[in-house]
């Protein structure tokens, strides 16, 4: 296994930049998720690492080798595709043997490795079958097997779970995670599902519009999103964002809404709010840090219930606050009705503030 380093990688089609100056380092044995909405450049980035499309600029190295100008076959990587890309005319055995045959390994060595990979993935009984005779989950395993059999320097995975049904996806999710732990493999994993990224990866690279937005551990991305895009993309339900105006009142700073209510900020938040480029400040809060009251309490702001979604353990609700939708969660015994007026209390220590102009997170200067 090896380290993968992307340096200032660019892929453009004329004026359209699919990947815009992306730099990131995947450490040896690390599981990195490239995550973002469709069209964000994550799959293009993966294809650049694989060498399937030519780069417009920058360099990529795998291990101590610069692979920027190498063919895919010379990069010593393995890839798992969204549609598995199993060779339909070949049996499972031959699918697994193909990468080894291409590397001209002796026959008995090929057999040994194929059997070993098949055993690891519990597909020994499927070796003589053709891919079309397998279920989706089995095809997925064969695709993993074909990647595993060669002992490559890095694994690339392009949305490998998105063609599976929900139940199987959860099962395969833990199997891939196990696969990573057992092999101590370097994995770059593309997904549009932030939950997959959060649950599986050591680090996640959040992309949007061809730009790398944030590259950090899921916990840090979750706790300290660098901008409004990351804040609203990671977490389910999404972080709620309410655009407000920062107003200084004597020694206090409050966030004022067009409706006339004001939310006083504590000292740290006040300092953050004042560091914004203009007085436009966006208040962000995750559902777990927001309390819902039926009557006004100090520090709470008025809202109106929009929808109520009981899930059993917890009831999610959407509340309109100053025209924005705020996701909240309450105990199932706390009954809410649509259109009911409620009061929302943000946790001052865990709320997020963003610059309304630049959409970047407001931080205290160190």
């Amino acid at each position, binding site marked *: 296994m090896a380290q993968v380093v992307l340096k200032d990688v660019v892929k453009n089609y004329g004026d359209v930049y699919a990947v815009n100056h992306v730099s990131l380092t995947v450490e040896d044995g690390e599981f990195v998720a490239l995550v973002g909405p469709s069209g964000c450049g994550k799959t293009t980035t993966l294809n650049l690492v694989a060498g399937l499309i030519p780069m417009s600029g920058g360099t990529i190295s795998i291990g101590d080798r610069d692979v920027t100008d190498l063919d895919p076959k010379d990069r010593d990587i393995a890839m798992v595709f969204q549609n598995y890309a199993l060779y339909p005319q070949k049996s499972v055995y031959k699918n697994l043997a*193909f990468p080894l045959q291409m590397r001209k390994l002796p026959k008995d060595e090929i057999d040994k490795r194929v059997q070993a990979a098949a055993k690891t993935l519990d597909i020994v009984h499927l070796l003589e079958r053709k891919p079309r005779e397998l279920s989706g989950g089995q095809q997925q395993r064969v695709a993993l097997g*074909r990647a595993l059999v060669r002992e490559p320097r890095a694994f690339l995975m392009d949305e490998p779970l998105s063609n599976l049904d929900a139940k199987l996806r959860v099962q395969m999710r833990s199997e891939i995670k196990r696969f990573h732990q057992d092999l101590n493999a370097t994995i770059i994993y593309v997904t549009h599902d932030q939950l997959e990224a959060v649950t599986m990866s050591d680090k996640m690279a959040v992309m949007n519009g061809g730009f790398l937005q944030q590259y950090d551990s899921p916990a840090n991305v979750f706790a300290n999103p660098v901008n409004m895009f990351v804040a609203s993309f990671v977490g389910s339900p999404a972080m709620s964002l309410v655009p407000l105006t920062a107003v200084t009142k004597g020694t206090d700073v409050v966030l004022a809404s067009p409706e006339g209510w004001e939310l006083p900020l504590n000292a740290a938040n006040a300092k953050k709010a004042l560091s914004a480029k203009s007085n436009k400040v966006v208040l962000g809060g995750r559902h777990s840090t927001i309390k819902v009251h039926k009557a006004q309490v100090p520090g709470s702001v008025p809202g109106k219930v929009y929808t109520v979604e009981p899930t059993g353990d917890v009831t999610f609700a959407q509340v309109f606050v100053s025209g924005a939708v705020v996701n909240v969660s309450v105990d199932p015994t706390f009954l809410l009705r649509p259109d009911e007026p409620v009061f929302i209390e943000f946790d001052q220590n865990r709320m997020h503030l963003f610059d309304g102009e630049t959409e970047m997170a407001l931080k205290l200067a160190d």
Partner: protein
Amino acid sequence: MTAITEAAVTQRKGAGGWRWSGRIFLLLLLGFTVMPMIWMFITSLKTGFAAMQYPPQWWPSEPTLENYWRLIDPSGSVGRDFVQYFLNSVWVSTLTTILAVVVAVPAAYAFSRFRFPGRTFLFFAVLLRNMFPAVVFLVPLFILMKALGLVNTHGSLILTYLTFGLPLAIWLLKGFYDNIPVQLEQAARIDGATRFQAFFLIVMPLSTPGIIATSIYSFIGAWNEYIYAYTFLTRHDQMTLPVGIQRFFSENATDWPGLMAATFMMSIPVVVLFLVLQRYFVRALTEGAVKH
């Protein structure tokens, strides 16, 4: 018993009515296509006299294979000519097919996979040739072949047939390649194959049904072609079957049984090709080779 039968009949009447009218229609259509062939075969078994009898005999009173022996007997002049025409046809059709496939496979693959400037225009230009009736090009092509010194050679026919066969072949094969996910080649390239190996080891085998279907279309097109062969070839030893068997017509009389026997022989290779390879057609139609 009757009650059950009646119930079953009433139950199925709605769909059954359509089914039966459909079957009757197909039966009529079948008769329409098969009758001439049967009549061709029956006539080929008759003597010259019996063939002209009126009212016609549905089955000859003295069936004979004499007409067939005459065609394949190398000692007679008819036999010598017929065998020569047959070999000429096989040569021209086979070479046309091989050349068409050899050129069409990479061309179709390129049209399917690569985005290059002028791709749409070129693809349309390729098909343009097939949007005109064949006769339109007869005189221009004859002049061209004359200038190239190709008149009275099989090369003139092969080149001409390629101008029809190749666009069709490219168009058919492109459809096949479009249906093969590009990820298969990408997987192969990552697994250690060169671009060419990925095509040759993974994509080509998957497009075999398409290549076979394309080959048959090309072969039949060349095998049956008449007007160009009639125009470009004047020497007897060069003629292909469709032109050659015209010699059974003469100014005074037509050897109908001989003509029918020759026509029947001519249709045999095509029928055999279809019978042997029809499973590829079916597979090409039903399987689609890969799941998306």
